C-alpha cells in the first residue's frame, strides 16, 4: 500500500474555540399500523416486517428514518474460510433541493455576529445520494451496477443497484436504493444486504420501496437548515468566566436533553437517573444499574481530583443503551460525527448490552472511559489535551476497571495489564518508572508492541498510585494529584510565555535563510514543548527524590505489579 503523508489542520484541536452548533429541532415521526409516517418531511412507507426502528443520532442531518433487520445472514469467505454475519439495513435519507436551501440560507444570513464567534458555514456537503454514498459509505469499495429512471404515481424515481465488492468488511453486498424526486426534497430509500442473501430479502425490499408515498406535510416547516447545511459556531470560551461558560453549557445541555427526549424511537424508554438522561432499549434493571454506576464514577472523579477546574460545570451526559452491538453499529452509521468525540453538540455516551455481565462486560468499561474523557475535557480542556501518554493511558486503564458496589467505587484487577507487565519484565523490555514518566510520544509509540506494552505499564503505574501501596504511603499518596497540579502549572506558564511573545509581534521572514531557520524551529517546537511539559511536571513532582528513594519506590512498585 502506498501512502501519502498529510497534515490535517486540526482547527478545533488547535484553538480554544468550542463549537456551538445549535441543535436542529427533532423530526417527529410515527409508526402506526405497520406504516412509518413522517409528517414533517411528508412521506410514509410500509414498515418492513422483522425490522427494528433505529433511533437517529442527535446531530444527524441527513438520515430521517432507519431500520435494522432482526435476522442475520451469513457469508463465508471462500479464500480465508471465515464466516461473517450481517443484518440488512434500510435507511431514508433526505436531500433538500438547492432552491429551498438557498431561501433558507438567505434568511439565516441575518444571524447575529459577535466579536468572539466564528461561524463556519458548510453548505451542501452532500449533493445527492451518490455523493452521500461516496462520502459516508464504509462497507467496502462500491460501484453503480444498474441505474434506471421510472415514475410511480407521478413521482419521478431513480432506481440504483450498487455492488460492494472490494475490501468489504463482511462479504460482498448489494445496495438497492430508490430516489424519489420531489420539487423540494429528494428522498433516497436505501437498503444494504449481503449479496448472497439478496434473493431471500428482495421481496421485503421491493415491497417497502413500492409502498413509499408522499403525504402532506402537516407539522412545522421543512427542516431545511438541518439537511442542507452544517453551521458550526466557534465561541472563544477561554475569554469567558466560569459562570458564563456554565450558562452556555447549561443551555446546550438542556437543548440536547430536550432533543434526545423528543426524538426517542418507539420501544425506547426514557429515564432520568441522577444526572443522567438514559435512553434505554434493553431491560430497565440493567439500565438503572448502569446509570447508578456511571453516577458513582462521576462522583469518584469529583472527589479524586477536586482541584481540577473546580468552578467548571460538567454537563449531564446522555446515556444511550442499545439492545445489542448490531443496533449500536446501525445507530452510529450516518453523515454525522461518530464515536468518542465530545463537543458542544455531543454529550452522548452510546453502549450496548453485551450480555457478558456487568462486572466483566466491555460495555461498562467503555462507559467509564468515556466519562473520564468527558469529565476532564469539561473541567480543564488544556490539561486533558496536554497529559502525557503514560497518564492518559494509565487513568483510562484504571477507570476501566472501576465498578460501583453499593455507591462506592471499587477497582478490579486487570489481567491484560498485569500479565502484560509480567511478560515485559521477563522479556527485559520493561520500562523503568522514571523513563516512562519522562517519555515523549514518539518513543512511547515507537512500535505497536511497545505502544501496547507501555499502555499496560502505564495502567500498572497509575493503579499503583490510585489503589496500590503508593496510595497508602505518606510520601507517595498524593504524587498523582501533585503531578497533575504541576502539569497544569507548567501549562499556564507556557501559555503566559506564548502570550508575551505574541505581543512582541512576528515579522514575516525576509530571506529564504530566515524562512528555513524558522521552519526548523517550528518543526522542533512540538517536541521541545512536549519535553518541557514532561520535564517540568516531573521535576516539580519529584524534586529532591534521591536515587535511593527511587530504587525503593520502584522495588515496591515491581513487587505490587508482578
Amino acid at each position: 500500500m502506498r501512502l501519502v503523508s498529510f497534515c490535517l489542520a486540526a482547527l478545533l484541536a488547535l484553538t480554544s474555540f468550542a463549537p456551538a452548533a445549535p441543535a436542529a429541532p427533532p423530526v417527529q415521526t410515527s409508526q402506526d399500523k405497520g406504516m412509518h409516517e413522517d409528517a414533517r418531511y411528508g412521506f410514509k412507507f410500509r414498515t418492513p416486517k422483522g425490522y427494528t426502528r433505529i433511533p437517529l443520532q442527535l446531530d444527524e442531518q441527513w438520515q430521517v428514518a432507519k431500520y435494522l433487520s432482526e435476522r442475520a445472514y451469513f457469508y463465508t469467505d471462500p479464500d480465508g474460510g471465515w464466516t461473517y454475519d450481517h443484518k440488512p439495513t434500510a435507511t431514508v435519507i433526505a436531500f433538500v433541493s438547492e432552491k429551498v436551501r438557498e431561501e433558507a440560507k438567505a434568511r439565516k444570513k441575518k444571524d447575529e455576529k459577535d466579536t468572539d464567534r466564528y461561524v463556519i458555514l458548510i453548505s451542501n456537503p452532500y449533493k445527492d445520494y451518490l455523493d452521500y454514498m461516496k462520502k459516508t459509505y464504509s462497507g467496502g469499495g462500491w460501484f453503480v451496477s444498474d441505474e434506471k429512471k421510472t415514475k410511480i404515481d407521478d413521482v419521478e424515481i431513480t432506481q440504483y443497484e450498487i455492488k460492494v465488492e472490494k475490501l468489504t468488511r463482511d462479504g460482498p453486498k448489494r445496495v438497492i436504493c430508490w430516489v424519489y424526486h420531489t420539487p423540494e426534497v429528494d428522498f433516497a430509500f436505501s437498503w444494504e444486504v449481503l449479496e448472497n442473501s439478496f434473493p431471500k430479502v428482495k421481496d421485503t425490499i421491493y415491497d417497502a420501496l413500492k409502498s413509499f408515498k408522499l403525504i402532506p406535510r402537516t407539522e412545522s416547516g421543512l427542516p431545511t437548515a438541518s439537511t442542507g447545511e452544517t453551521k458550526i459556531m466557534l465561541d472563544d470560551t477561554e475569554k469567558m468566566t466560569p459562570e458564563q461558560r456554565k450558562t452556555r453549557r447549561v443551555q446546550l445541555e438542556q437543548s440536547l436533553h430536550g432533543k434526545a427526549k423528543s426524538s426517542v424511537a418507539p420501544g425506547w424508554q426514557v429515564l432520568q437517573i441522577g444526572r443522567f438522561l438514559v435512553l434505554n432499549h434493553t431491560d430497565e434493571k440493567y439500565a438503572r444499574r448502569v446509570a447508578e454506576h456511571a453516577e458513582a464514577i462521576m462522583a469518584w472523579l469529583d472527589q479524586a481530583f477536586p482541584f481540577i477546574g473546580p468552578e467548571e460545570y460538567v454537563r449531564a451526559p446522555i446515556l444511550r443503551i442499545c439492545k445489542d452491538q448490531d443496533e449500536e453499529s446501525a445507530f452510529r452509521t450516518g453523515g454525522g460525527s461518530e464515536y468518542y468525540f465530545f463537543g458542544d453538540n455531543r454529550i452522548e455516551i452510546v453502549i450496548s448490552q453485551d450480555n457478558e455481565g456487568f462486572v466483566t462486560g466491555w460495555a461498562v468499561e467503555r462507559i467509564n472511559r468515556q466519562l473520564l474523557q468527558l469529565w476532564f475535557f469539561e473541567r480543564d480542556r488544556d490539561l486533558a489535551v496536554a497529559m502525557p501518554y503514560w497518564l492518559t493511558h494509565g487513568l483510562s486503564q484504571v477507570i476501566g476497571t472501576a465498578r460501583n458496589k453499593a455507591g462506592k467505587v471499587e477497582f478490579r484487577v486487570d489481567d491484560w495489564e498485569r500479565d502484560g507487565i509480567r511478560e515485559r519484565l521477563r522479556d527485559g523490555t520493561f520500562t523503568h518508572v522514571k523513563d516512562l514518566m519522562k517519555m515523549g510520544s514518539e518513543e512511547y509509540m515507537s512500535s505497536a508492541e511497545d505502544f501496547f506494552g507501555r499502555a499496560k505499564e502505564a495502567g500498572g503505574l497509575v493503579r499503583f498510585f490510585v489503589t496500590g501501596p503508593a496510595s497508602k504511603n505518606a510520601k507517595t499518596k498524593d504524587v498523582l494529584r501533585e503531578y497533575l497540579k504541576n502539569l497544569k502549572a507548567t501549562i499556564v506558564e507556557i501559555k503566559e510565555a506564548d502570550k508575551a511573545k505574541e505581543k512582541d509581534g512576528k515579522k514575516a521572514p525576509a530571506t529564504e535563510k530566515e524562512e528555513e531557520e524558522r521552519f526548523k524551529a517550528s518543526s522542533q517546537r512540538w517536541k521541545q514543548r512536549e519535553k518541557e511539559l514532561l520535564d517540568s511536571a516531573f521535576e516539580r513532582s519529584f524534586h529532591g527524590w534521591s536515587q535511593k528513594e527511587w530504587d525503593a519506590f520502584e522495588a515496591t512498585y515491581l513487587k505490587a505489579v508482578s
Partner: protein
Amino acid sequence: MMRRSLAALFCIVVLAAFAHADFLCLKDGRIVEGHKLARAPGGVKVTFTNGEVLVPDALISDVLIEGEALAPPQTEEEKAQVSKGMVRFEGKWISPKSRDDLLRKRVEKRVKDLEVFKAHSEWRNRYQEKTKNFEFEHTLPPEVFENYRDLMEAYFAQFLKDWKIQAPKGLGRLKVCLYSDYGDMIQTGGAGGGVLGYFRFIPPLELNFFHERLDTAFTEEVMFHETNHYLQKLIDMDFRMPHFPGESLAEYYGASKWDPVKKKLTTGLILEGRLVEVQDDIAGGTMMDLKRMISSERMYEHYTWGWSLVHFLMNDKRYAAKFQKFIIALPTAKDIKREVNSQNLKAIEQSEVASAFMRYLDVKDDAALKVMEGEWHAYIKEKLTLVTTRGKEEAAKSAAQSGRPLKAKRLMKEAIAAGSTNPMTFHRYADLLARDGKHAEAMDLWKKAIALDPLVGEFYWHMGRSILAAKGDKDEGERLKKLAKEVDPDGSYYDIDIEAAAAGEGDG
C-alpha cells in the same frame, strides 16, 4: 478498435442537419456534455451559463457539435460545383443526398461510439483485457491504458530477470484494476483516504491504482510501486514481506522509466517526491536513526528515508549484492526466524528483520551500524539531488504546504522558466502571489494555467477570490466563482465559507 475509430472520426467536420447533443471527449477521458460547443481558433469553445471556456485542440480526443455548418465555398471551382447543386465531400463532388446519406450513417455510428466511450467511464462497463501476465480492468481511454499495459509487462520481465526469480508454475494472471481518477479508486477500490494504490496480498491477489491526469509520472510511480509488491511476492507466494524493506524496495522501483520506443526500462532513478520529504525532514532538524528505522514496524518513513536507504545500498558496490541476498533470504533462509501469521503467511518480526539486515550486510554491531548510518546520511546530502522540473515542482509544493512561501515561489518560478507545462504549478504560484497581494501577476499565471487545462474549476474559483480580495470587479469575481462550479461540479472546496474570513476575503 475504439482508439482508431475515434481518431479517424475527429477529422470529420461536417455534421449539418444531424441533430444531436454536443459532446466533447478529452484525451484523458474527461467528457463535457450538456453545454453548447462551437469551434474556435485553436480549439473548441464551451459555453457555460457563467462564461465561455476554450478547450485547446491538444487536449481533445473527439468532438460532436450539433448542426455544425459546412464551410462556405472558397474557390471558383467550388463555387461552380455548388451552383450545380453539387457538394465536395472527401475530395469528390457528389450530390447532397449522397453526402447526407453517407454522413447520416457515419454520424449515427459516431454517436454510438461516443456513447460507448462515455459508458466505459462507469465501472460497470469497464474495459477488460488480458495480457501475458495480467488481467486488466479499467475505465481509461484505450490509448492512455495501453501505455500502462506495456509498461507493466516490461517491468514484470525485467524484475524477474534482475533478481533471478522464477515465477511460480500455474501463477496465472494478476488482476489489475485501474481507475480514471483518485476518487474512483477510493470509492470502487474501497481503499481509505491517503492510500494512493494497493496490492491485495492474500487471495484473490489484486492490484489497484489510478490515473492522475495532471501528473502521469506520479501514476507511473504508484504503478511501479504497487506492482513491485506483487513481484516481491513472487519470491515466495507464502511470505508476507515486512514493511521494511518491502515498502522501501517498492519505492526504489517506483522511480523507474520506460522508453516506449527503445522498449527499455531504467530502474533506480531518483524518486523526487520522496527525496523532497527527506530533505524537508533534514531542513526541520530531523535525521533518521538507521537502527530505529530498520527495527520499527509500519513507519511512514519506510517510504521516504527507507527509499533513500535502498537507493544508497543498491548504488554502493560494497552493499548492493549483499542487500539483494538479504531480500531473497527473508522468505526462506534457515538463519531467519519466521512465524505464521493470522493470514496463514510466513512473517518476520521487525526486530528479526533488523538482526538479519545486520548479518547479511556484514554489520557487526551497533557501532558499525552507526558507521553505515553516517555513510547513508552523507549519500543523501551529497548524491541525491532534484534533477527534473517535476522535482522542483514537488519541492515547491511541499515548501508552500510547510509555510515556506519564499522557497516555494523561487522553485515554482524556476520550474516555469525550465518549461513546466503543469497547470497546477502556475496555479499554486498564482495562489502564493495573491496571498502577497500581487493580484495582477497572479491573474496572469491563472490565465496560463487555464490555457493549459481550462476544465479545472479550482483555477476559476481562485481567480474570483483574488479579484474580490483586491476589491476589483465584484460581479466578475462572483461570476468566476460560479463558473468554477459549472466547470467542475464535483469540486468541494467552494462549499466551505468561513464568514469571519470572508470579510476580507481571506487572502490579503
